[in-house]
């Protein structure tokens, strides 16, 4: 695979340059630029309808912006289809859960892994000298790791649509991880969770980001300001298609414009739970 070699921590993994996306007359993104560094958790905040989900969809290829560049590891990926971006190591979860409802938890996770298998065979080199059996064992091991990490051992064989919402969110994270992504897009992973579940999920995200085994760079869209300010390296603020600022959490919290546009709503979110 052409991947422009391995990046070091702190190198730019993803860059949006002056991205514009409109639907008819609705301008969802008007000139958004963003630089995400490898190894970081980069959050995107903004009020409802700000264009956060549209931004994720542009990055992952479900939408094609009318103007602007999207660079992944220095390579322009505007023209790539979602599945091709997935092969490059981009994975995601959805605001509205998009699991394969009729399948079991394990099958959902497997599906992500199956697709990996293809790139594994194509690039071949990774498996030179290994037998196929070993390769399969290696993948089985990955499943187990994910199940362990997310503590979903006892629901692995349950059908997904029977599970409570909080667990479905977890399974979705697991499925995204099975692709062994380098960059993971998380669209409101905490929405609709109770206090305890929020804590668990925040911990999982930190684990995925920090543990030597995973080291996944994350772009996190989230309304829960407490968690965002707690776990992010940088926070990008979006207001109805317009970027307001991008900086470390401490700076963002001090910016009057941000407070006016968004943080003022924080009370709203604390009463939500």
């Amino acid at each position, binding site marked *: 695979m052409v991947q422009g070699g391995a990046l070091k921590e702190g190198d730019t993994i993803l860059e949006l340059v002056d991205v514009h996306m409109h639907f008819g007359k609705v301008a969802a993104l008007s000139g958004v630029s963003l630089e995400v560094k490898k190894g970081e958790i980069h959050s995107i905040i903004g009020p409802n309808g700000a264009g956060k989900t549209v931004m994720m969809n542009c990055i*992952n*290829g*479900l939408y094609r912006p009318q103007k602007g560049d999207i660079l992944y590891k220095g390579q322009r990926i505007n023209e790539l*289809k*979602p*599945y091709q971006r*997935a*092969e490059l190591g981009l*994975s*995601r979860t*959805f605001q509205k859960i*998009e*699991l*394969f*409802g*009729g*399948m079991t938890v394990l*099958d959902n996770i*497997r*599906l*992500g892994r*199956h*697709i*990996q*298998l*293809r790139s594994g065979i194509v690039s071949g080199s990774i498996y030179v000298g290994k037998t196929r059996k070993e390769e399969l064992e290696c993948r089985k091991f990955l499943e187990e790791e994910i199940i362990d990490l997310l503590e979903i051992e006892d629901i692995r064989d349950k059908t997904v649509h029977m599970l409570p919402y909080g667990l479905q969110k977890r399974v979705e994270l697991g*499925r*995204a991880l099975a*692709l062994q992504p380098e960059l993971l897009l998380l669209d409101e992973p905490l929405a609709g969770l109770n206090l305890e579940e929020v804590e668990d999920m925040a911990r999982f995200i930190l684990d995925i980001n920090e543990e030597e085994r995973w080291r996944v760079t994350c772009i996190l869209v989230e309304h829960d300001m407490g968690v965002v300010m707690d776990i992010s390296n940088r926070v990008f603020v979006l207001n109805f298609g317009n970027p307001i600022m991008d900086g470390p959490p401490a700076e963002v919290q001090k910016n009057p414009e941000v407070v006016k546009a968004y943080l003022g709503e924080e009370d709203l979110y604390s009463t939500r739970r």
Partner: protein
Amino acid sequence: MELFLMTVTTGLMVGGIYALVALGWVLIYKCSGVLNLAMGELTLIGAYVTLTFYQMGVPFILAVVGTLLVGILLGILCERIFLDKLIGEPILSVIMVTVGMSFFFKGVVQFIWGSDTRVFDPPVFALKPIEIGFLKVSSVYLWSFILSILLLLIFVAFFKFTRWGLSMQATADDETAALSLGVSARFVYAAAWAIAFMSAGVGGALLGNINGINISVGYLGLLVLPAVVLGGLNSVPGAIAGGIIIGLLQNLSGTYLDQYFPGGVKEIVPFAFMAVFLLFKPYGLWGWERIERV
């Protein structure tokens, strides 16, 4: 009593063929939300392709394999030529394109093979019926049934146990997620069309063995529509059950109602049954409850 049992057995066996054709229908619907109204013509093409191979001296079973291969090729071609450009367009437009395809295919078939009824000559299956216990079943029906079930099993195994099959299932279940996980929509659509062509083609070949081949094999293919709707449009087990139910209904009505309503009662009853059934179960036997979306 014996007449009844014979009728039921025959119905069951023809139903097996319908189930095979229904599978193709369901597959395309499941993966892409499109009701492929050219399915009847695919059945027709399959029948003629098999016949052509057979008359070139290829043994029947190999002619069927050849039809499968031609099916894959045509399916992928059709998807690429007619449908690929329509990804993202309203479903209704796509359905209208399949109507166009059905007229086109019908024209092509008449152009290549003419409109006379043709039969497999020499007959593929022995004319002497096979006796199972006290039941006499004509061997065409029995072998067609066995072949249909075999193919159905192969297709189902493909969905359940291969990576490609899983990708198709995933797309059917949640397209957005499947795309984001690395499934190529083009691949899945092409695969769905290829399998639909294969199942309809072989279904056509088998039906052609029973009644001879002319344009009306295409209508037999369309007769499967009630089977598909009955099963719930998107359910593979539903298609199989639906196919068998339609086969049974058709034969029972042919045997018992034809004397009161001579003529086409056999062809009407499945559609009438579908209409009444849907009044009570609008989503079919195992349908999603969100079919109204289409």
